[in-house]
């Protein structure tokens, strides 16, 4: 019923300071009831895409279809969508009840009784029954956020749009609301697009994550897919915290099928399974490995280990983040809290081949992931810009 399709959607901003391509040929199909999170750094085009779906921004080129019907030219009020803004955008002169009922009063012909029933139902779902007669100014940020979400729920739209709705809340409340929004989505089952710059939020909430950079689609996939099999270096770097370590290496083939990845003060032997998945031309590579996959292990086999000097140890309680110096480059390791090396100590690091990701040094495209031990299928054409 509410499948949303984006077909080569492009947005170009033209003003006196020049032309900016905010979104470039974005293709995306969102299934009915799916919770999709758009994530990316500031200016990547995620909010612009959301605003094009809402109708608040015109579409320069391409087509957006909702339930199979083209909605490019429809005004926001005719699109059967509801949106929650980062600033909540509550009407300050109306009560909570007035805010929630307003959309129904304007765009439906429900009678007052029915509107009231729906407002109270949504208020109950959001836990804001006590606030219905208050004005937004007297509410806390968290309460305003609930009202804004309630205002969207009450509309029972075909698509929910969330534009960084939790960014203005403190960390604890943000985590709480995250769970709550996920619960509400599973209750109402409405197709949802959620925009955030917080990859953790994206990972925890999404059915599928859409990663954008510079207006281009980098990868679409489940949280696990984008974490374990990033399409390119940008996705690998963006998803995960602390972010993935990258080392420039070259592949030395030893003639027997296996080989060694060699870089500055780095030498790591890889199996024939991994080498076999690289074509012969690829020699300039980037080795990626996540901090949580690295162990500090004095007795590690020398052909599978790296030596580095400890710079800083950050204790966060459950784990330690260890920042090391490897040939002048920062190298990050996440260890259990009982492993706490001294600063300036040289330690031996090792990691399993299944956690190795290899990227093309020139294009940034992923070539092989250790876990799948299979060559990455041809990346989408958009991704060839990550190294630009």
């Amino acid at each position, binding site marked *: 019923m509410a499948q949303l399709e984006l077909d080569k959607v492009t947005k170009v901003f033209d003003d006196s300071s020049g032309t900016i391509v905010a979104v470039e040929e974005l293709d995306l199909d969102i299934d009915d009831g799916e919770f999709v999170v758009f994530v990316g750094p500031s200016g990547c085009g995620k909010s612009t895409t959301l605003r094009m779906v809402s*109708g608040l921004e015109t579409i320069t080129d391409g087509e957006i279809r909702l339930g199979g019907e083209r909605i490019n030219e429809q005004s926001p009020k005719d699109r059967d969508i509801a949106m929650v*803004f980062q600033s909540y955008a509550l*009407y300050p002169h109306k009560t909570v009840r007035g805010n929630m009922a*307003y959309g129904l*009063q304007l765009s439906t012909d429900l009678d007052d009784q029915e509107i009231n029933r729906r407002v109270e139902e949504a208020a109950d779902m959001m836990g804001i029954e006590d606030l219905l007669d208050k004005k937004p*100014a007297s509410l806390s940020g968290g309460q305003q956020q609930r009202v804004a979400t309630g205002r969207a729920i009450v509309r029972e739209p075909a698509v929910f749009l969330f534009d960084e709705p939790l960014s203005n809340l403190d960390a604890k409340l943000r985590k709480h609301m995250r769970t709550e929004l996920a619960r509400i989505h599973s209750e109402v089952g409405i197709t949802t697009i959620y925009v955030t710059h917080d990859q953790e939020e994206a990972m925890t909430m999404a059915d599928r994550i859409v990663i954008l950079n510079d207006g281009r689609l980098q990868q679409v996939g489940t949280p696990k897919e984008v974490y374990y099999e990033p399409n390119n270096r940008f996705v690998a770097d963006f998803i995960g915290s602390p972010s993935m370590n990258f080392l420039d290496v070259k592949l030395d083939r030893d003639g027997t099928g296996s080989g060694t990845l060699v870089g500055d003060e780095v030498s790591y032997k890889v199996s024939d399974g991994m080498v076999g998945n690289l074509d012969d031309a690829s020699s300039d590579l980037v080795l990626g490995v996540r901090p949580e996959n690295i162990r500090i292990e004095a007795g590690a086999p020398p052909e599978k280990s790296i030596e580095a000097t400890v710079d800083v140890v950050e204790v966060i309680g459950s784990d330690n983040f260890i920042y090391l110096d490897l040939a002048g480059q920062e190298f990050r390791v996440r260890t259990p809290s009982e492993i706490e090396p001294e600063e300036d100590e040289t330690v031996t690091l090792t990691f399993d081949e299944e956690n190795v990701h290899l990227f093309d040094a020139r294009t940034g495209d992923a070539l092989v992931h250790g876990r799948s031990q299979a060559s990455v299928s041809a990346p989408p054409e958009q991704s060839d810009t990550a190294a630009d």
Partner: protein
Amino acid sequence: MLNPTKRDRALLYAGIIAFALFAVVPYYWILRTSILTNFAAISPDTGFLPLGELTLDPYFAVWADFAFPLYFRNSIIVAFGATLISLFFAIPGAYAFARLDFPGRQALFYTAVFTIMFPWIVLTIPVYEVFYFLNLVNTLPGIVIALSIFVLPQNIWLLQGFFRQGIPENIEEAALIDGHNELTAFMRIVLPLSAPAIGAAALFAFLTAWNNFLWVFVLTSDEGVRTATVAIHYILGSDVLREWNTLMASVVLLVAPPVIFYGLSRRYLGEGLGGSPGG
């Protein structure tokens, strides 16, 4: 011996009181003179608090001897007319400057702002020519139009700042999603939220128009379309024995309406100037 904090505080208050007296005494003098007999008003023997010689006669004299009811009527028509007309154009104009991106927006806006700073007196002759050509000299509509035009830029400037900062764009966007189009969102959401700023703009427009001397003086010569502000100039300049008490009484009457208007709109004014929508 006072401790330093108390001493500083005492000095501060003494300074504030001295400054307040300095500021208030001229107003007090106007009030005092307006309720004295003419003789007492010019006599050097009359004290600061001349309790024995008070009279309301000067006020009756203003009303009786000069056509003040007519002047006041004209002032009210002119001030309200200019306020309404300038707001009628300033509200959409300011909104366009604040929200829309159209060619020449900046140039137009700076032109408008420039006219606020431009010395009006330089324009008297061309303005007179234009109004003469349009048969608007010596008419109330002529004065209303002139004052509206000269009040308009300041209103646009004041209101665009409010629209820009006081009303988050997201609120309008929420209204668009809730079922409004651009026009109804403006009328039903933006305008009610702008009431404080529009009140402030109205007050400034009213004050500017009410107090305006130059354009009324330039564009009128008939007593029938004279406003109170200009009428006082004629009382002051009349060749009869100068009656300071009557003059001061007319000044008090002239100042009263704006003060009352301010008092009524004060509740909104602070918010309007603060740039935030009322909660």
